[in-house]
């Protein structure tokens, strides 16, 4: 029996490896004691031992909005593509982390923050546009709603209001809290809110995780009266909705919902849902996109138990703000269609989204088609901007907020240009 020391074996190996033109990893000196500063072993992508983490990890990292806005002259709106006759211009720049949009009765445009602490008002006086901070020091004030002169603000753990806000923009005072029975959570802990035709205020209370059995208080859309009373669960099985609106004719409630991460590049897709009965369950965490059960918590469940989506919005695409188009400026085909801002993916090597899409509906409220409307916030797999919310103005033009570049854009339509 021939016995060799490990260094002899290594020398033999080295000769072999050199002849093959390969390099050998350095010798680990001692097997008993780890060296003083141990680095984790280079890991690989699950199921793909050929792909080192370091390479692919870069493309799967969270995309974080910069805390300071992009200067107006550096907004790359020239990259945006849309159909002939439509035009996009910068409506307001320098609004760091511009999120939800609401328009007051007197035309004030309100803009919220998610990662920062402010609510802004954009006004026009004598043809001059002005942006001012009307509230600050707030806790993730993502949610905004406007009703009968009052602005409602949805913060992490409370809903508050500023009455007669358009008459007191220079001195709005502190918001008054109307409801504070919301769980304190950092994960999906910002609120999207809206007021319905029933004069109730609807609040998204997202799952406190990527995927988990959510507590009873979470993964739901809740509604309250405008004085904060009468809270009830309106929809369940909602992972995290950052956009909802009511059909202008049927008054049905539609909402976007963001699918879980780290399952696959292509699954699940984000959803567009319709509530036809109070208390419906939309599947999270057991069933995704209406047709497959979850790898971790879906065992023993069936998608038949839940209300399926009316349309799929793309994997990881982050379908956020949505509004029915009720204006008269855009062509007739867009009337009562749903515009959806897709913030854009992070948990996908080839990013998708970073656009505004439009879902056109059939008479029965089902979805006829989903088409791109404005594309190009994503360029060479990187974002220069990320759309968050859309809002129809009185003249039928449309505002789009962008929390990455810190801006609000306005889209108009000119039939003469379209027919040229």
């Amino acid at each position: 029996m021939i016995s060799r020391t490990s260094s002899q074996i290594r020398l033999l190996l080295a000769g072999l490896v050199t002849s093959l033109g390969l390099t050998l990893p350095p010798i680990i000196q001692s097997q008993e004691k780890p060296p003083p500063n141990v680095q984790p072993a280079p890991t690989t992508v699950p199921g793909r031992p050929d792909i080192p983490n370091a390479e692919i990890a870069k493309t799967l990292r969270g995309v974080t909005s910069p805390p300071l806005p992009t200067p107006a002259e550096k907004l790359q709106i020239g990259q945006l593509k849309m159909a002939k006759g439509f035009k996009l211009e910068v409506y307001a720049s320098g609004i760091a982390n511009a999120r939800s949009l609401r328009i007051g009765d007197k035309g004030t445009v309100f803009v919220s923050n998610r990662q920062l602490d402010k609510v802004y008002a954009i006004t026009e006086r004598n043809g001059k546009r002005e942006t001012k901070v009307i509230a600050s020091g707030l806790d993730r004030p993502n949610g905004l709603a406007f009703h009968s002169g009052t602005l409602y603000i949805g913060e992490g753990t409370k809903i508050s209001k500023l009455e007669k806000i358009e008459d007191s923009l220079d001195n709005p005072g502190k918001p008054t809290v109307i409801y504070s029975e919301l769980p304190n959570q950092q994960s999906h802990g910002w609120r999207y809110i809206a007021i319905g035709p029933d004069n109730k205020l609807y609040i998204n209370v997202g799952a406190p995780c990527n995927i988990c059995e959510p507590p009873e208080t979470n993964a739901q859309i809740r509604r309250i009266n405008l004085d904060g009373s009468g809270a009830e669960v309106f929809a369940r099985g909602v992972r995290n909705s950052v956009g909802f609106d009511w059909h202008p004719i049927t008054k049905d409630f539609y909402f976007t919902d963001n699918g879980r991460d780290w399952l696959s590049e292509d699954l699940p897709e984000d959803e567009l849902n319709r509530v036809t009965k109070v208390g419906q369950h939309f599947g999270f965490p057991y069933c995704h996109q209406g047709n497959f059960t979850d790898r971790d918590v879906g065992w023993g469940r069936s998608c038949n138990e839940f209300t399926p989506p009316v349309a799929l919005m793309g994997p990881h695409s982050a379908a956020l703000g949505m509004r029915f188009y009720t204006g008269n400026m855009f062509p007739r085909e867009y009337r009562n269609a749903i515009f959806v801002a897709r913030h854009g993916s992070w948990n996908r090597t080839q990013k998708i989204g970073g656009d505004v899409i439009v879902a056109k509906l059939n008479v029965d409220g089902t979805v006829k088609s989903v088409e791109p409307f404005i594309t190009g916030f994503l360029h060479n797999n990187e974002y220069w901007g990320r759309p968050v919310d859309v809002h129809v103005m009185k003249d039928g033009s449309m505002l789009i907020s962008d929390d990455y570049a810190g801006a609000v854009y306005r889209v108009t339509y000119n039939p003469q240009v379209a027919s040229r």
Partner: protein
Amino acid sequence: MLAALTALSASIAGAATLDEGLAPCLACHGEKGQSQIAEVPSLGAQPVFFLSVQLLMFRDKMRPIEPMSGMMKDWSDDDLRRAAEAFAKLSPPNAALEPPDATRAEGARALIEQHRCNFCHKQDFSGEQNAPRLAGQREDYLLKALRDYKNNNRRAYDAAMADVMHPLTDANLQDLSHYLSRLR
């Protein structure tokens, strides 16, 4: 020391030099980028993006922690940027001399792989963009930060940490802090 803190509150722009303006910061966080004070983080070689975000959150009271918020209340955006750049240029902190406990290191490495910590914080945990450097950070600070994220006591600029923290136990957080603080 209190006098020094008060002096800074005016503005770092008001100080004769940037070094002078930042001296009170480094009195606690460590002149060479390595903190010697319990639960005070080392700032050396942290990514500029991460530092800017944290400074802004202190100034604008999204993380209302004294003396940070008070000291920075009059800082301009430019002050934030200059301070972040200066801290980022300090040397990375030295890891603890003794190696990590083998069992805890193994546990931490498994958690890192499972929860993909190195996707954002990088393979060597030197950090990038909004993901801070963790290698060589003070163990007590790492544990405090992780617990604060886990218990929703620390407001994050984005929710990535809260998502990751959800399934982790306190023992997990202890192993991670033990291991990462000993990583160079």
